[in-house]
C-alpha cells in the first residue's frame, strides 16, 4: 500500500440554513478552502470523490452530475459514494484508496448536505405503501437501544445530559459550528423537552447545511503544501444487516470489528493511551458512552464512567478528549458529518484546531456510522508516517 496524507482541509460555516449560496456554491466553498489550505489549484487535482446522504434531502438525483462544474471535474474521474450516515467517513476512505492504490497522486474529496432545502424529517420518513413497519423516526429507532444500554450498564440517567453539555462547551470553541451554546448547563439540558425518552431535545443533533473537503496526496507530494502532512495510518469499513436475529444493537459487532481492524493497521492496542483524542459520530448524547465501549476505550458497561469522570472533556482536562470540535451535537450536515469527524481528527494532529486544540496531539481517531448503526467507517491519522 502507498502512503497517503491529508494535505488540505476545507470546511464551510455550518448553519441551519446557508441561504447565501446555491448547492454548487456550498460545495465549491469547502473545496476551494481545502485547495487554499493545501496551497493548490484545481489543476493540481487528479480526481474528485464526493459523498452525501440520500438525494431526497435536496431533491437532486445523483447531484454529482450537476456539481461536476463547481468542482473542476471536466476531464477528471469523479466518484460518488453513499453509505447512509457513515458516508462522510466512507468517502474519505474511498478517496484515500485512490492514492493508497498508487493509481492517483493527489485527489480532492468533498461531502455535503444542504438540509434546509427540504425538511430532513420528511425525506427520511417518506411513507411508502405497504410498509410493514411503524415509522417512528430516527429517535424512535435509536431511543430503545439507548434504554437497553442504560439497563445493561446501570449508567446514571444524567450521563446523556453530561455529554450534551460537554460537546456544546467544546463546540463553543469552534467558530464554524451551527449551535453556539457557551453558557449551556446541565439544568438547561434536563429542562429541555423530552422527545423520545431517554432523548431530550438538547441531547439531539441539529439539522445543518454545510460541506467539508480534504486534499489527500501521496508520499511524494505530501510535503509540497504549507501545512504539515497528516498521515493516514489505518482505515476500515464494516457493514452488517439492519436486523438479524441475535444482533447486538447496543454494541454492534460491525463497530467492534471495524475499530479492531483500524487499530491493528495503526499499531494501537490501548486506544485510551495511544490516541490523543477522538472525533466520534455522536448524534444523540447517549452514543458517547456506548461508543466508548464499542471502540475499546472502556470495558463493556463502563463507558459512562469515562464520561462522568470527565475523561472525554477538554474543559475538565480529560486524558482522552472526545469531539473537541463540538461533534455532531453542534453541527450536523448529515452527508458531511462523518467527513467533519475525519477532518477534525486531522486538524488536531497537525495542531491547527485553534481554541479546541488538544495540546501536543499526534494521533487521533475519526469515526462515522450510519443506517441502523450498521455501517461504519473509521480512520486513524498521525503526525508520523509509520
Amino acid at each position, binding site marked *: 500500500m502507498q502512503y497517503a496524507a491529508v494535505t488540505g482541509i476545507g470546511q464551510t460555516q455550518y448553519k441551519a440554513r446557508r441561504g447565501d449560496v446555491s448547492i454548487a456554491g456550498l460545495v465549491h466553498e469547502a473545496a476551494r478552502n481545502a485547495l487554499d489550505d493545501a496551497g493548490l489549484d484545481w489543476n493540481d487535482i487528479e480526481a474528485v470523490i464526493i459523498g452525501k446522504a440520500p438525494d431526497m434531502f435536496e431533491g437532486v438525483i445523483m447531484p454529482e452530475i450537476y456539481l461536476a462544474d463547481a468542482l473542476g471535474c471536466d476531464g477528471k474521474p469523479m466518484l460518488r459514494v453513499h453509505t447512509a450516515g457513515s458516508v462522510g467517513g466512507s468517502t474519505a476512505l474511498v478517496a484515500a484508496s485512490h492514492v493508497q492504490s498508487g493509481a492517483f497522486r493527489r485527489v480532492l474529496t468533498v461531502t455535503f448536505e444542504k438540509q434546509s432545502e427540504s425538511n430532513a424529517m420528511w425525506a427520511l420518513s417518506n411513507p411508502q405503501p405497504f410498509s*410493514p*413497519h411503524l415509522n*417512528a423516526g430516527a*429517535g424512535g429507532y435509536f431511543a430503545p437501544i439507548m434504554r*437497553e444500554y442504560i439497563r445493561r450498564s446501570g449508567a446514571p440517567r444524567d450521563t446523556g445530559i453530561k455529554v450534551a453539555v460537554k460537546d456544546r462547551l467544546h463546540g463553543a470553541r469552534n467558530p464554524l459550528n451551527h449551535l453556539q451554546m457557551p453558557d449551556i448547563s446541565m439544568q438547561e439540558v434536563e429542562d429541555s423537552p423530552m422527545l423520545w425518552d431517554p432523548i431530550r431535545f438538547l441531547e439531539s443533533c441539529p439539522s445543518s447545511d454545510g460541506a467539508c473537503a480534504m486534499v489527500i496526496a501521496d508520499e511524494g507530494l505530501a510535503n509540497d503544501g504549507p501545512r504539515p502532512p497528516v498521515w493516514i495510518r489505518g482505515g476500515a469499513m464494516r457493514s452488517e444487516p439492519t436486523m438479524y*436475529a*441475535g444482533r447486538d444493537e447496543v454494541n454492534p459487532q460491525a463497530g467492534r470489528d471495524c475499530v479492531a481492524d483500524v487499530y491493528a493497521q495503526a499499531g494501537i492496542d490501548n486506544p485510551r493511551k495511544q490516541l490523543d483524542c477522538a472525533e466520534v459520530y455522536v448524534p444523540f448524547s447517549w452514543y458517547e458512552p456506548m461508543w466508548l465501549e464499542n471502540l475499546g476505550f472502556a470495558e463493556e458497561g463502563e463507558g459512562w464512567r469515562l464520561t462522568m469522570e470527565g475523561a472525554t472533556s477538554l474543559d475538565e482536562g480529560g486524558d482522552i478528549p472526545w469531539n473537541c470540535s463540538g461533534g455532531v451535537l453542534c453541527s450536523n450536515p448529515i452527508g458531511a458529518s462523518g467527513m467533519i469527524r475525519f477532518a477534525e481528527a486531522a486538524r488536531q494532529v497537525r495542531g491547527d484546531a485553534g481554541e479546541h486544540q488538544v495540546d501536543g496531539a499526534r494521533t487521533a481517531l475519526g469515526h462515522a456510522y450510519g443506517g441502523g448503526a450498521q455501517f461504519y467507517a473509521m480512520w486513524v491519522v498521525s503526525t508520523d508516517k509509520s
Partner: protein
Amino acid sequence: MSEDAGEHITAIETPVYLKYNFTAGQATTRFLQQVRQGKLVGQRRPECDCGNVYVPARGSCAACGLPTTEEVELGDKATVQSFTIVWIPIPNNPIQPPYIVANLVPDGANISFIHLMSECDNDSVHIGQRVEAVWKPEEEWDYAMDNIRYFRPLDEPDVPIEMIGKVPLAGWEGEA
C-alpha cells in the same frame, strides 16, 4: 409589470413531485396477506443452521443472505425487548403523546418489530414485559400492520433478559 427591480431573488420554491406505482415484494406480500386475515406469520429458511424466524420478513434470512421460504404462524403474544416513551406526534397518526413505541418480539419469532403499546401505565413499562396484540375490528382489516391497533400488557411473569428473542410459540407462562 413594474419596472422597479424589486428585491434581489435569493431563494426559489421548487416542487419536485414524482409519481410511482409501488409493488410490495414477495415476502412482504405474503406477510401482509396473512395480516389481512388477522394473523402474524413469520418466515424462516429451513436449511439455515440458525433456524431464525423473521417477522415481518423482508425476503431473506439477513444473517445468511438466502430466501426465507417457510412460513411460521405466530401468536398474538410478544415480549418487550426495549421501548421508548415518545413525546412528539407521529405525522398522520391520531395517537397522542406521550405514548410508547416498543421493540416487540412475538412468541415463536427471533427478531423484534416496532409497534405501539397502550392500556398501560407508561412509567411501569419495562424490558422483558409480556404483551399481547389488540386487533382492530375485523371489518377494518387491511394489508397493514396497523390492523394491530397496539399491544397491551399481559399478566404474566417477565421474560428473563437472556430469553428475550428466544421465547417459543408455546409461550412463556408455561415455563415460568
